[in-house]
């Protein structure tokens, strides 16, 4: 898997209230949720983001609520992948389960807004085309790879064992 895109860079502890405020959780419609993506962090984000862009952030991305709407909103805004120094557990699960590519880079300080980066997931390499630098990203555990390969948790379950009783 090769993902290339323009970077939007933000900081640490970006929580689900900033990603999609609860006042908009009266719907599950991706298009409606995308309109308010990251609104309380940067109200201009939705104007700036273009399809295929990549979100690069610091530590503990997606902490807070379990709302999967956060992942839905980010995906529908056009973001193609996230690179973070670490993720809050529930957000990470939600991203894996719904097929939003998420990667861990121990230190994201050398990547800034506007850079063009390329993620070579198979080889665990991230190239910053703008600064012409190469970084190694953390490998994905085998069990999680099975879910990704199936195309998300729903497909994984469908293939496996659905309650027949």
């Amino acid at each position, binding site marked *: 898997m090769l993902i290339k895109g323009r970077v939007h860079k933000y900081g640490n502890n970006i929580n689900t209230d900033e990603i999609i405020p609860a006042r908009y959780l009266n719907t599950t419609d991706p298009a409606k949720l995308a309109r308010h993506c990251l609104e309380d*962090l940067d109200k201009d984000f939705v104007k700036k983001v273009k399809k295929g862009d990549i979100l690069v952030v610091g530590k503990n991305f997606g902490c807070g609520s379990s709302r999967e709407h956060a992942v839905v909103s980010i995906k529908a805004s056009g973001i193609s992948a996230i690179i973070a120094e670490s993720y809050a557990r529930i957000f990470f699960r939600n991203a894996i389960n719904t097929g939003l590519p998420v990667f861990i880079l121990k230190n994201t300080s050398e990547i800034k807004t506007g850079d063009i980066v390329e993620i070579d997931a198979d080889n665990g390499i991230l190239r910053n085309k703008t600064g012409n630098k190469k970084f190694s990203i953390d490998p994905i555990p085998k069990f999680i790879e099975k879910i990704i390969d199936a195309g998300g948790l729903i497909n994984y379950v469908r293939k496996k064992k659905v309650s027949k009783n």
Partner: protein
Amino acid sequence: MKQTITQKIIARHVGKKELRVGEFVEAKVDIALANDVTAPLAIEKFEKVGAKKVFAQNKIALVMDHFTPNKDIDAAGQVKKVREFAKKYKIKHYYEGGNCGVEHALLPELGVVRPGYIVIGADSHTCTYGALGAFSTGMGSTDLAAIFATGLVWLKVPPTILFRCNGKFSKWVTGKDLILHIIGLIGVEGANYRAMEFGGDAVGELTMADRFTVANMAIEAGGENGIFHVDKTTLAYGKNLWKKPDIYFSDPDADYERILDIDVSKIEPTVSLPHLPSNTVPVSKIKKIFIDQVVIGSCTNGRIEDLRQAASVLKNRKTNPNVRLLIMPATPKIYAAALKEGLLKIFMDANAIISPPTCGPCLGGHMGILAEGERCVATTNRNFVGRMGHPRSEVYLVSPYVAAACAIKGYIVHPEEM
């Protein structure tokens, strides 16, 4: 192998005697929970799985608490969708309207969640039930959809941090102050992917309400679960709710990743300043911060014990004219008890607004939204940017004692100064 209570409960649910930390397993779920925000998305995903039935009609709980009473047409539409799903699949534990309360107060009260269970909820504060000696954690809607279909969840067995709490609690210090103190100590990511186990003699002194509060906020340190051992307090709580609970204990020399000793006698009433729960300081260190609103309630602090604490401070006093005081009993049963005990009279005499059981203002949903620049002192669990309304409003997290004192004075104050 020496194991923690968390390892043992998970092992039991995969049919094994023991499990190594870091192992990936598929475990049987005893209760799967979702609410009016997360259930609609879970239902959409469930329909994609193609299952004809849910894994067990009596093991799914759907609690319509977040926007109740429904705040607008879209919110009402979400509840309608869940209600129809509950009818179609004959879900036993469906709660809406007058039998509905804040999920994490309601389900223990009804005996739906029990010691030794694995409870998975599409709500991050599902970790609350660890107070009962259950393995209980929050996940997203897709995970819930998969459980609805299969009854199974994938887990990575977490390492455990033991918080060994000893000493005597000072006056005015509650479970809320203990957990805020701990979050301040280890940070909002301090227990990410980890079990938080609460032990030591001081824990035995905590009421069930306090234990629910402590376990509830494990997620604010990133914790996968927060867990207590079952003791006589737990058994007394469950006496009329369940028989023969499934009880597990950590081995005395279990392999903890880290042990933190907490001397609770050193903890003061504590406040989390905006905009992270880990920004904690003792209330006594705060200079006058004037406030516009006080919220007492939520899955963190909306139980009858919490309302009693608030009432003890508010009795024969009036809310400051610059402050709106909102009190939200977390369930109908708690509401009825507060009425019977005369607490609601005390609140009304203090010019408080008494709200129906709802998550409402805690998440900035409805019923108590903040304007730009407004400040709120709350017994809730999060103070992120925009949590209760405008992105430039502020939330300060405290115990019910402190919240009540702030409502009277109009600024952040130690209850001792009443």
